C-alpha cells in the first residue's frame, strides 16, 4: 500500500525522467527533420518522432511542474499544521520562543516544503546534462572534446559571476550599513514613529512637514540602489557568454565533421542544442545550495516537532465551589514552601512587594505554571492530574497584558468556549467594557483589527474573557484600575486578585501577604493595616 504522498513523489520522479528523456530525443528528431528539409523530402517518421518527443516533453514537464507545485504546497502545509499542533500541544510548558516559532512557521516550513521539487529539478538537470554529453559522444566523440573545452571556458565565467554576486550579497548583509539597508531601516524607524503619532499629525496638519522628515533617508537609498544595480550588472554579464562560448566550440568541431562528411548539417544543429542542454547543470548549479538550505530547514522543523508533548492529566473534577489548597509549593526561588488555602467563594487579594513572587503565585493558582515541589489541589484534586479541559473550565485567568486572539470582539472574548453573544455582552458589562463595545459599529461582532485598543481596554477585555467562561475560580493578575472590577464580578465564586491598590485589598475578604517568596500573613486588610511593613507594600507600588 503506497500512500498518497509517496505516490505523488513516485509520479514526480517518473514524470521528471520521462520529460528529461523527451528533451534529449527532441534535438535528434530535429536533426532528421532539418536534413529532410534540406533534402527537400518530406520525412514522416522524423516528423512523427519530433511531434511525439516535443509533445511528451511539454506535457510531462508541465505535469511535473504542476505536481511539484502541489507537492510543495502540500508538504509546506503539512509541516505547518504539524508545527502548529505541536506548539499548541506544548502550550506554555516549554515553548521554543515566539521568534523561533514564527521563523519555523513562515520560513523554515516553506523552504523545507520545496525539497522534493528542488530534488526533482536537480535530477532533471543532471539527467539532461549527462544525457546530452552521451548523445554528443554518440554523434562524434570530438564534439565531446570541444564541449569540454567550451565548458572549461564557460564554467569559470559562470563561477565568476556567482562569486561576484555572493560578494555583493555578503556586502548586503554587513555592509548593509554602508549602503542600502541603513537608510532603509532609518526610514522604517522614522515612519513607525510617525505612524504612532498619526493622530497628532492628522489633527495638527503637519503631514507635509512630517513626510519630508520621514523621507530624509530617501536620497541615500536612491544612491545605494543605483549602485547596487551597477554592481549586479558588472557581476553577471560574463555569465551570459557561457552558452555562446560552448556552442561556438561545439559548432566549430561539428563544422569539421560536416566538412569531412562525418556529420550531417542537421546533426550540427542537434550538436549545438545538446551543447546548450549539456550546460544546464552548470546554469542550475544554484539548486545544490538551495537543496542544502531546504535540508537544513527541514532539520530545524523536525527539531521543533521532535520534543515529546507534555503528559496531560486525565482526572475529572468532582463538584465543588472552587477551593484551592497549596501544600508546600515551591517554584524556583520565587515561591518557597507556600501553604495556602483559598476558601470557596471568597475574594482574595494577593499583595507583595515583589511582582515576580505575586505573579508566580497567580500563575500557580491558575494552573499555568508547574510547581517544582508540593502540590496544588483544586476541590481536592491535584491540578496536574486534572484533564486540561476540566481544569480550564473551572479556572479562568485574566492576565495583566492579555493578547486577544481571534477575529472579532465576540470571538476573542468567547475564545475556545461556547459562550453565546448574550453571555459575551454580560461579561463585557461586568468587565466595564460594555460601553466601548456598544459604541462599535457592529457591536461585539466588530473586527478586532478595526481599532487599536489601549492597554486598559485590552486588560478589561481579558477580564471579560475570563468572566464569560463562568468558572469556579477567577485569577486576575496585577492590574491598575480594573482589579476591583474582578471582585465586583462573579460574586459567590472564588476570586483571587493580585493587586497593589489599598482599595482593592480593603474590599477583599482575605489578604494574602507575600514577602520573600513566603506567605507572611493571611488576614483581613484592617487587621494588617497596623503593621508599617504592610503599609509599605502599597506605598511602594503605585502606578509605574
Amino acid at each position: 500500500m503506497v500512500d498518497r504522498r509517496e505516490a505523488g513523489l513516485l509520479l514526480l520522479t517518473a514524470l521528471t525522467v520521462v520529460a528529461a528523456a523527451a528533451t534529449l530525443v527532441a534535438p535528434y528528431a530535429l536533426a532528421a527533420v532539418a536534413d529532410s528539409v534540406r533534402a527537400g523530402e518530406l520525412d514522416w517518421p522524423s516528423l512523427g518522432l519530433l511531434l511525439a518527443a516535443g509533445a511528451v516533453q511539454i506535457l510531462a514537464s508541465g505535469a511535473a511542474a504542476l505536481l511539484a507545485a502541489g507537492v510543495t504546497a502540500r508538504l509546506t502545509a503539512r509541516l505547518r499544521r504539524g508545527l502548529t499542533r505541536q506548539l499548541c500541544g506544548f502550550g506554555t510548558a516549554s515553548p521554543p520562543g515566539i521568534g523561533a516559532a514564527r521563523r519555523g512557521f513562515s520560513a523554515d516550513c516553506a523552504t523545507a516544503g520545496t525539497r522534493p521539487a528542488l530534488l526533482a529539478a536537480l535530477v532533471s538537470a543532471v539527467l539532461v546534462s549527462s544525457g546530452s554529453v552521451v548523445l554528443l559522444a554518440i554523434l562524434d566523440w570530438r564534439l565531446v572534446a570541444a564541449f569540454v573545452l567550451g565548458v572549461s571556458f564557460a564554467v569559470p565565467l559562470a563561477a565568476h559571476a556567482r562569486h561576484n554576486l555572493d560578494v555583493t550579497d555578503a556586502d548586503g548583509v554587513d555592509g548593509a550599513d554602508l549602503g542600502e539597508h541603513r537608510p532603509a531601516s532609518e526610514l522604517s524607524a522614522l515612519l513607525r514613529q510617525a505612524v504612532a503619532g498619526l493622530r497628532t499629525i492628522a489633527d495638527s496638519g503637519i503631514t507635509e512637514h512630517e513626510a519630508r522628515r520621514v523621507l530624509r533617508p530617501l536620497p541615500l537609498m536612491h544612491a545605494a540602489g543605483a549602485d547596487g544595480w551597477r554592481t549586479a550588472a558588472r557581476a553577471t554579464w560574463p555569465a551570459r557568454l557561457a552558452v555562446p562560448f560552448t556552442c561556438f566550440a561545439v559548432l566549430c568541431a561539428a563544422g569539421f565533421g560536416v566538412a569531412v562528411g562525418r556529420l550531417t548539417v542537421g546533426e550540427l544543429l542537434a550538436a549545438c542544442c545538446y551543447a546548450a542542454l549539456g550546460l544546464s547543470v552548470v546554469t542550475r548549479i544554484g539548486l545544490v545550495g538551495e537543496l542544502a538550505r531546504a535540508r537544513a530547514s527541514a532539520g530545524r522543523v523536525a527539531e521543533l516537532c521532535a520534543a515529546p508533548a507534555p503528559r496531560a492529566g486525565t482526572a475529572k473534577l468532582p463538584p465543588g465551589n472552587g477551593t484551592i489548597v497549596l501544600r508546600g509549593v515551591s517554584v524556583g526561588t520565587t515561591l518557597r514552601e507556600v501553604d495556602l488555602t483559598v476558601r470557596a467563594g471568597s475574594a482574595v487579594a494577593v499583595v507583595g512587594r515583589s511582582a515576580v513572587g505575586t505573579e508566580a503565585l497567580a500563575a500557580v493558582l491558575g494552573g499555568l505554571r508547574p510547581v517544582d515541589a508540593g502540590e496544588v489541589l483544586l476541590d481536592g484534586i491535584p491540578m496536574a492530574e486534572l484533564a486540561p479541559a476540566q481544569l480550564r473550565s473551572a479556572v479562568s485567568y485574566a492576565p495583566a497584558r492579555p493578547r486577544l486572539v481571534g477575529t472579532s470582539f465576540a470571538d476573542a472574548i468567547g475564545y475556545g468556549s461556547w459562550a453565546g453573544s448574550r453571555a459575551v455582552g454580560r461579561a463585557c458589562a461586568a468587565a466595564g467594557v460594555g460601553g466601548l463595545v456598544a459604541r462599535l459599529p457592529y457591536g461585539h461582532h466588530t473586527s478586532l483589527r478595526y481599532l487599536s485598543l489601549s492597554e486598559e481596554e485590552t486588560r478589561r477585555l481579558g477580564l471579560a474573557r475570563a468572566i464569560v467562561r463562568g468558572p469556579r475560580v477567577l485569577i486576575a493578575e496585577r492590574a491598575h484600575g480594573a482589579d476591583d472590577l474582578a471582585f465586583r464580578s462573579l460574586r459567590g465564586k472564588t476570586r483571587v486578585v493580585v493587586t497593589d491598590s489599598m482599595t482593592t485589598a480593603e474590599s477583599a475578604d482575605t489578604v494574602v501577604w507575600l514577602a520573600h517568596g513566603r506567605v507572611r500573613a493571611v488576614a483581613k486588610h484592617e487587621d494588617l493595616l497596623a503593621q508599617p511593613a504592610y503599609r509599605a507594600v502599597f506605598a511602594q507600588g503605585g502606578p509605574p
Partner: protein
Amino acid sequence: MRLYLRTIGEQWRALLVLLACSVIEAVPAFATGWLVERAVSDGFQRGGIAFGIGALGVLLALFVVGALGSLLVFSRLGSVVEPLRDVLAGAVVRGVLGMRALPRSRIGESDVPGILRRIEDVRQATGLLLGRVRGLVVTAIAAMAGLFVFAWQLALIAVVPVLLSAAIVALSMPTLLTRQRDLALAHERAERSAADVFAGMRDVVSCGAEATAAASVCADVDRQERAALAVARVAWVRTVAVGFGVLVPFLGIGFVAPGMVAAGQLTPGAAFGVLCYLALGIVPAFGGLATTSGTAGKLFTALHGLGGGGRPDPLPAGSVAPAHTGLSLRGVTFRWGPEAEPVVDGLSLDLVPGDRLTVVGETGLGKSTFAALLMGQLEPERGRVLLGGEPVSRIAPAERHGIVGYLPSEPYLFAGSVRENLAVFSMCSRFARVPDGRLLASIAAVGADEVVERLGGLSGEIGHRNRGLSAADAQLLALARLYASSAKVVVLDEATSHLSAEAEARVERAFAGRGGILVVMASRQAPFPWQGRVLVLGVPGHARPQAAEIRTQDAEIGTQDAEIGTQDGEIRAQDGEIRARDGEIRAQDAEIRARGVEDRRDTAEPEFEHAIPRQARGGEEPRSGSTGRERINGADVPLGKQP
C-alpha cells in the same frame, strides 16, 4: 497603479536609453540563424573551414557585444527604478501620514514593515521586468524579425503559433495575477494568525483553547495551500501553451519546407536558417520567460497592497475663515455604525474664549471621538459643529490647525532636537517661526524645565522612540509644545494621565491662564467647580441602556451634581489627600481666572451637559445661561430612541 504607470512614463528618457541599449542586446539573436546558415552552407559544407569558423567567430563576437549591451542596460536600470521608488515612497508616506486616524488609527506601527516591504517588492519586480524579462522579450522579437527578413515565406508558419501562444499567455494574465494576489493574501493571513497564536500562547492555554487555536491556524494554512494550487494550475496552462506554441512551428516547417525546397521556392540553406532561428533564438527565450512569469504577479500584488493600505481618506478641505474663535455645537449626534450606541446624541453647547469644558467618561466611551468631532475630523451624523460661526469642516485646514490644538494621551515626539519638537506646530502654519523665548516661557509655564534641562536645553536631542524619556516627560514636552502654539481652542485628551497630581495641577493652571477655550478629557476626574462645565459621556457600566435607564441615571447624576465622582469614588478616595492639597491651588487658580477672563457664570456650581439628552425628562428645567437654550434647540432634533 496609476501613479506607478505615470511615474514609469515620466522616466521616458531613461526608458529610451534602455530601448537603445536593448537594440544592441538584440543583435546576436537577430543574426544567429543567418550566420550559422552561412557558416554551414558557404563554409563547412564546401570545405571552407576557415570561412565557417570565421562566420561563427563573428557570431560569437556579436554575442559579446550583446552581453555588453545587457551590461549597459542593467547598470542603467537604477535610473528608472530608483526614481520610481522615490516617487512611490513619497506618495505612500504622504498617504499614510495624511490618513484620517480617527478616533483610533486602523493603521498601526506594525503595518510599517509590510508597507515598506511592498515598496521594495515593487522596486525589485520592476527591475526584473525591465531587466531580464525585457531582455528575453527583445531576444524573442529579434529572432522573429531575423526569421522574417531571412525567409519571409516561412515566417508565417513560424510566427503565428508563437504569437498565438503569447496571446494565451496574455489572456491568462489577469487570472494569474488575481490568483497570485490571493495567494499572497492567504500567505499573510496564515502568518498573522500563526504569529497571533504563538505570541498569545499563554492566553490560549489559559482559555483552554489549544485545539481552537490550532484549528484556526490550520484552516488558514489550508486556504493558503489551495491558493498555491490554484496558481500552479494557471501556470501549467501557460507552460503548455508556450510549449506547443514553440513546437508547432518546427512541425509546420518540417511539413511545408521540403515541398518548397523541392519546388525551388526556397533554398535549403534558408529553410535550415529558419530552424536555427527557432532552435537557437526563440526556444531559449521562451524557456526563460516561463521561469520569470511570477515577476508580474509580484509587482501586481505589491501595488495592489499599497493601493489598499496607503490610500489617504480625502479630508474635506474647506476654504472659509472663521470670524471668531467661539465653538458651538448644535444638536450634534454621532455614532460609529447604525447599530452602535451613540457617542453623543443631540448635543448642543456653546463655548466662548475663556470657557472651560471637562469631558468625563470611562475608557472607550468616545472621548477621543468627541474631540475629533470638535476638530472637524469627523462629520456628525446630525447637527453641526461651528467654529467661529462656520461649520468646522468647511474651514480651511491651515486656519483650523492654527486655531485648534489637540493633544492625545500618547504624545508624538520625533527624533530630533527639543526645539524642532516644540516648534513643529508653528512651522507649517502661517505664523512665523517661534522664537526661543516663547518656547522657554511655555516650558516654564507647564513645568517642563527639568525635563528640558536634563535633555540639554532646547538644542538637546530626543532619541528614536522617546529613548530616555518617561511617559510623563513626553507628556510635559508635548504640553509645552501645545502651550507655545497659536491655538485658541485647546483640547487635552487625557494629556496629563501620566503626570503626578502636582504636575497636573500646574499644567491645568497654566492652560487655564493661557486664555481661549480649554476642553479637557478625563476618564475619572472629579468635576470640581473650577473645572468649568462638565460633559458626561455615556453611562458607565451599562452596555446597552434603555432610554428609561439613561433618564434615571441622568437624573441621578443631575441631582448628585458634584458628587458624580462617587461613581468611581473608591479609586479616588485613596488620593483624596493629594486632591485636597491641590484643591487649594486650584481654588486660588479659580480666583485668578475669575479676574482674568470674562466669565459668564458667577456660580461655582458646575454645570452638567449630557451627551445623551434628557429633554424627554418632563419637568426638568433648563440649566442656567445660554447652555439651557441650546439644550432646547437640541430637543428639536428628532430622536428615534425616545418614546
